[in-house]
């Protein structure tokens, strides 16, 4: 297929958000890291220099690297050291997950509690990591990010379509339904569509785009069916554990299409939940980055 297909949903999303000035942009640091990594001869030292030029990001990266999230026995004191040990891709992921909170400026208009939202997102990232680990997935970093970012569409709607989104939240409260249901009938698009659209604009990986798009409806995922299933179920787990709040107070049913892909049995639940609880504890370091 040649150019990107303009699906009907993308059209609607475009209509909703395309006219806005000042769309959220991917943190500049990430673009620069990507460019540097195009060059196979780029050294750890050079990328470290780039990251070190921003003390705020440096301190975040070092805090995450030294936290129990990674559990290294010895302290890592320089970014170069961190890159050498963890590799470029992991550091890139850490930069993304530490700086994503800054992309959306604070909102004092009320209605949507962003603190609780990010807690839910971090929890989902942690749960996704646990599920992926159990399934033997190779790149846990990327799954963590997929879990962390799955609901970013809600923030976009809250920030750029605030009044309509507040209507959605009101519907959720009055009818006690899921946000995705209220969005569908009120806006015609869901935060899953909006999030996927944003990640496409940001040129993030196709896997992340499809996973985000399908996290409530994993049956629609083709190439990334497993990842979508993981994030779908991770979302359910975090809601069951009541960590943070994504804007609604109900729990969605696990998708019949997703469940078989997880290779799990209900007898695993007790152990799984305890593991997720521990992983969320380790991911608390990211809570400090939300302000």
């Amino acid at each position, binding site marked *: 297929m040649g150019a990107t297909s303009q699906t009907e949903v993308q059209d609607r999303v475009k209509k909703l958000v395309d006219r806005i000035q000042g769309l959220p942009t991917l943190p500049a640091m990430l673009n620069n890291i990507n460019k540097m990594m195009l060059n196979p001869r780029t050294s750890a030292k050079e990328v470290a220099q780039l990251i070190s030029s921003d003390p705020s990001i440096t301190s975040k990266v070092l805090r995450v690297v030294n936290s129990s999230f990674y559990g290294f026995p010895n302290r890592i004191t320089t970014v170069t050291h961190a890159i050498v040990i963890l590799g470029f891709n992991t550091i890139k992921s850490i930069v993304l997950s530490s700086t994503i909170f800054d992309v959306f400026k604070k909102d004092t208009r009320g209605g949507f509690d962003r603190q609780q939202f990010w807690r839910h997102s971090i929890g989902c990232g942690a749960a996704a990591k646990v599920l992926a680990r159990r399934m033997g997935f190779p790149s846990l970093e990327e799954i963590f990010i997929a879990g962390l970012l799955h609901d970013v569409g809600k923030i976009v709607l809250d920030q750029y379509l605030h009044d309509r989104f507040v209507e959605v939240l009101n519907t959720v409260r009055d009818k006690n339904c899921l946000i995705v249901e209220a969005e569908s009938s009120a806006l015609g698009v869901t935060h899953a569509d909006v999030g996927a659209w944003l990640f496409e604009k940001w040129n993030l990986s196709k896997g992340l785009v499809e996973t985000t798009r399908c996290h409530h409806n994993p049956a629609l995922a083709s190439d990334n069916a497993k990842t979508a299933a993981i994030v779908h179920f991770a979302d*359910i*787990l975090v*809601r*069951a*554990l*009541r*960590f943070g709040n994504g804007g609604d*107070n*109900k*729990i*969605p*049913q*696990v998708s019949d299409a997703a*469940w078989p892909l997880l290779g799990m049995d*209900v007898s695993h*639940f*007790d152990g*799984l*939940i*305890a593991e997720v*609880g*521990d992983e*969320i*504890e380790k991911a*608390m370091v990211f809570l400090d980055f939300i302000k």
Partner: protein
Amino acid sequence: MRVVRVEEATAGARVAKDILDLKGTLLFRAGTELTPAVIQILQTRSITHLFLEDVAGAAPAPLPAGMRPEEIDGEMHRLFADVGGHPIMKALRDSATRYFHSRVK
């Protein structure tokens, strides 16, 4: 261990460090369980904050402040109200309920 405001401390949590009043008088030793009576005394002595023990294996404040152990089951049933008929969701609900009960002890 973490610092919390006295109003936000949940009953059943344990004090992580000795609580002294402003003159240095020992009020409660580390390890004391926070009962409503203890909390009352703290408030009369103008203690506004204290160090709380994290519950073993520390789940991040799994119960919202004020939810008592006997409320857990009801709360979980409410959360899973629409999906509790599905066997997988039911198993998940029961598992999560067990988890919360284990945290409260």
